């Protein structure tokens, strides 16, 4: 998975979102050790302090836990990860409806389109 950074938003936020996605999608499995800050920063081509800030955000969300001996690990609270996965899915659906509305579809029409896609 590549790091993608756009120009118009804070870098740490984008890193934080992409780290979250990696945890939710199981690239970093529950309870596994996260790579060190420096390694992640070098991989994304960003400042280590910025990466550090993104990781701290993960910690305050409860997705990652700082462990004094083992470094930073992904939480083993599967319910917490699932809750965030669910929230992200809802956001994608909301964004879909918003984009469909721009094309002039009502919510019902948009939902019907999804069903149609399913039956193809």
């Amino acid at each position, binding site marked *: 998975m590549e790091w993608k950074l756009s120009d*118009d*938003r804070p*870098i740490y936020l984008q890193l934080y979102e992409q780290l979250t996605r990696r945890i939710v999608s199981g690239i970093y499995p529950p309870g596994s050790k996260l790579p060190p800050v420096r390694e992640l920063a070098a991989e994304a081509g960003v400042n280590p302090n910025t990466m550090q800030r993104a990781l701290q955000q993960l910690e305050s969300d409860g997705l990652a836990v700082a462990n004094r001996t083992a470094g930073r690990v992904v939480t083993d609270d599967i319910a917490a990860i699932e809750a965030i996965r669910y929230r992200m899915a809802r956001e994608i659906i909301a964004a879909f409806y918003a984009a469909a509305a721009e094309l002039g579809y009502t919510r019902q029409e948009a939902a019907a389109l999804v069903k149609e896609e399913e039956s193809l």
Partner: protein
Amino acid sequence: MSDLLIQCTALTKAYGSKLALRDVNLSIGRGRIIGLLGPNGSGKTTLIKLLCGLLQPTRGTLLIDGQGVGVHSKSIISYLPDKMYFADWMKATDLFDLFADFYQDFDRTKAMEMCASLGVNPTDRIKSMSKGTKEKVQLVMVMSRKAQLYLLDEPIAGVDPAARDFILSTILTNYNEEGTVLISTHLISDIEKVLDEVIFLKEGQVMLHNSVDNIRESEGKSVDALFREVFRTIPIEGGNY
């Protein structure tokens, strides 16, 4: 050890009657990567030269690691000038000998490793090297020191975009973690991602000093876009040139 690495108070530098820096107040901490940005003639190189003691301030004070510019500050600063100052008959390995003599914190092994990863042959003569390769050698020299303050004046201007990315990652992975890196450049979009903070200089004055993410958050645009907006060239008297 002082908390602040650099502290400038009302720092002013005049060349004759022309003011290159006017009442600059700056506080810079440790462990940061900072972009020094501004259009041509805004005072970037003057500020860097004051920091490394190549110029004397006209007025104001400048403290580095809590002390004035002198033997101590020179021992903790690693400076990459905007021009090459090495004799061109030398080989990179000769330069390493020179640096090892001058600087206690020069790490020769690291220099050789960096040459290898940048694709520079250290036994070639400087004379035979391309402009970009010379810049790479200079960068290797400067980044192979375990300094507290790295002053890099236009470090990536002469190399191709692919090498630029590589050089930036070299800077990122090789700077000393308690050290601060101050990079002056015009190529903002290339280096924005690696910076903590930026300083905008305009006509010898600091017009902005903030973190990259704060700027993106409050302006909703990249530092590069903000720079282009702030420093847009307006033709004088509506002229066409």
